[in-house]
């Protein structure tokens, strides 16, 4: 029994056990769930530290039709997957523990952990998949578990809506991905990651780039890239740990991971790469701009997640697999940290999420404040925190490939520092605006703060010595393709951001007024997220709605009324007319009788 299977299936078993047996007892459920993921974490650690090559377990033949279709269920164990395993199980464990405190007393406590375990299972599945169908399977499973967790408080209107939105938006991405997979298969006859690279060469360039783009669609959906980014902010309706785990650290990163995993399909195609890069860049910038005008503590983080994902995708687009994974890892650390911090703040403020109702909290919740600050700096990419290294790699990559993208990236970095500064200052400094809430505010319990500290450490140290990239590339040193000074030069960007935000918000009663004034119309646009939601709502309502109604009308009127009804109508009318012969008058009867005879004779004899 290969230990990998344990990593993968422990959470599934946990989920099953909880739903079937221990639903009633909250403690048990929680313990089982946490135990499952911790086991995973431990085993992953073993693999990680283990010297020498890893052995992938023998795959099972999951779906076999003759020699035509062979779909395996296997596990790839290589540096990439192990790194990702580490992230998922590590950050996951932290968040599981955190949830013990955060979800305390919620009626759906057990259900929460069941779903969490289900999610962990599916996420690990994605990480381990060794073929396209398998990854698609877990892809979908991740989608559904996020659907369940977003809609965790299903009686909340907005929550239920958000879950649905997330699921459907992902579905649209998956539509493309499925087609891409099919196209790839018809050209190579296999789904397996192991066999594919050899066969890629045979595919004509045009087809290949189509495949690349289609598969990228999947990532667009899952990693909430423009134009399918709309679901992620709404997903914040879910409990904060969920936002941290799924919508910051792991699931949304799955898109990026998948792209790295199947890089052999994308890298050869120039067109695909360019498209990916641009999508990434656009997302990064757009999300950052939106973030500056949000008031919900979690939504700000959500948009920043978007823009960071944009970075990663851009990196992939620039053929920088390693930087992408690097940033993914560090981002997982500090973004999870930030969310958990935000969660702790919300917890302290009794589920108040509007930053303008907070303020001056640093005295009340010191640990949260410190860790949150660390997260912020890391995110902004301040030396020597992890964010600095990973972001640098991406920006410098852009610098040497595509100046425009570099500019966008740099500006995004500036905005990042700016809006994170804004959030920090408004939440933790200044005068408390809601005194009642402020007085009752309190530091969170240990189960919640401990993970904060753990993640804080990681966010600080995650980038040191470029350890992650080295691990990925199997030890051999990356050729130092950039001089150090460029990296440090880039430090000016976040600095500027912080300064600006400090100037505006670091005061007793900060407000957006000056910025509003400065930006004018632009402000309303960013405040309303460029009206994407409205646009899509319109499309759904009017385009799809109209078509659907047309179909329905066609069904009811054309097919049923005219088609069937017409047929039935004609029949009965014909019947009625025929029956008019039945006058009841003997003379007419005799006439028909005689006529009938003569007609028959006419046709047989005369003709």
């Amino acid at each position, binding site marked *: 029994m290969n230990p990998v299977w344990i990593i993968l299936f422990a959470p599934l078993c946990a989920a099953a056990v909880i739903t079937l047996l221990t639903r009633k007892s909250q403690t048990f459920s929680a313990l089982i769930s946490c135990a499952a993921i911790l086991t995973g974490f431990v085993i992953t650690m073993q693999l990680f530290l283990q010297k020498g090559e890893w052995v992938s377990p023998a795959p099972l033949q999951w779906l076999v039709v003759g020699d035509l279709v062979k779909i395996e269920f296997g596990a790839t164990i290589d540096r990439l997957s192990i790194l990702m395993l580490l992230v998922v199980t590590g950050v996951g464990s932290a968040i599981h523990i955190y949830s013990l405190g955060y979800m305390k007393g919620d009626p759906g406590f057990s259900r929460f952990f069941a779903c969490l375990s289900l999610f962990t299972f599916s996420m690990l599945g994605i990480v381990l998949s060794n073929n396209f169908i398998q990854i698609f399977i877990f892809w979908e499973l991740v989608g559904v578990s996020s659907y369940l967790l977003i809609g965790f408080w299903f009686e909340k209107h907005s929550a239920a809506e958000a879950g649905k939105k997330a699921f459907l938006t992902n579905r649209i991405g998956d539509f493309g991905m499925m087609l891409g997979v099919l196209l790839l298969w018809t050209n190579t006859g296999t789904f397996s990651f192991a066999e594919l690279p050899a066969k890629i060469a045979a595919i004509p360039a045009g087809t290949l780039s189509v495949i690349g783009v289609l598969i990228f669609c999947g990532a667009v959906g899952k990693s909430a890239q423009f134009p399918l980014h709309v679901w992620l902010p709404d997903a914040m309706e879910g409990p904060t740990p969920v936002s941290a785990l799924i919508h910051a650290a792991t699931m949304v990163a799955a898109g990026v991971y998948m792209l790295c995993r199947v890089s052999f399909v994308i890298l050869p195609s120039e067109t695909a790469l360019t498209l990916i890069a641009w999508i990434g860049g656009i997302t990064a910038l757009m999300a950052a701009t939106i973030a500056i005008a949000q008031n919900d503590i979690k939504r700000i983080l959500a948009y920043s997640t978007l823009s960071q994902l944009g970075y990663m995708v851009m990196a992939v687009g620039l053929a920088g697999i390693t930087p992408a994974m690097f940033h993914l890892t560090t981002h997982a650390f500090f973004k999870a940290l930030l969310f958990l911090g935000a969660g702790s703040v919300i917890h302290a403020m009794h589920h108040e999420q509007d930053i303008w109702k907070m303020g001056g909290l640093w005295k009340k919740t010191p640990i949260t404040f410190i860790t949150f600050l660390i997260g912020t700096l890391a995110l902004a990419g301040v030396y020597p925190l992890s964010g600095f290294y990973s972001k640098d790699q991406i920006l410098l990559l852009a610098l040497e490939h595509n100046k425009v993208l570099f500019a966008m990236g740099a500006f995004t970095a500036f905005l990042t520092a700016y809006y994170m500064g804004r959030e920090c200052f408004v939440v933790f400094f200044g005068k408390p605006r809601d005194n009642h809430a402020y007085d009752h505010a309190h530091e969170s319990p240990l189960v919640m703060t401990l993970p904060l500290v753990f993640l804080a450490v990681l966010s600080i140290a995650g980038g040191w010595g470029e350890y992650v990239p080295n691990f990925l590339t199997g030890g051999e040193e990356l050729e130092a393709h950039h001089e150090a000074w460029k990296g440090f030069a880039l430090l000016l960007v976040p600095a500027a951001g912080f300064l600006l935000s400090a100037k505006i918000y670091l005061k007793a009663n900060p407000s957006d007024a000056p910025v509003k004034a400065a930006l004018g119309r632009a402000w309303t646009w960013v405040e309303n997220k460029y009206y994407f939601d409205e646009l899509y709502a319109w499309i759904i309502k009017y385009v799809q709605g109209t078509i659907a109604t047309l179909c329905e009308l066609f069904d009811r009127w054309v097919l049923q009324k005219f088609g069937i009804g017409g047929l039935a109508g004609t029949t009965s009318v014909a019947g009625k007319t025929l029956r008019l012969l039945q006058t009841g008058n003997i*003379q007419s009867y005799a006439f028909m009788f005689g006529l009938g005879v003569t007609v028959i004779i006419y046709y047989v004899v005369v003709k």
Partner: protein
Amino acid sequence: MTSELTLNHYLWVSGLLFALGIAGVIIRRNALVIFMALEMNLNAANLALIAFSKYNKIVDGQVFVFFIIAIAAAEVAVGLAIIVALYKRKQTVSVNELNSMRL
């Protein structure tokens, strides 16, 4: 001197009579007269049979006619009985008033 009458002459006569019979049934509304017309039909048939049996020198035709006549008589008896009963009930023998059942 030989007769230039052929079988067809007789068949024509019977045919015309038969046509008359049909016409009568269709035209008249008086049940009794209709019945007379029906008798004409039968007679037309008789004539044809007799003529055939004469010209084919086969006697069966005549025998058949014998049966037909007998049956016709019976039919008339029953038919008239029904008509009488009908008259008792509806005070009419006009068939176009018999349309309580239609369509």
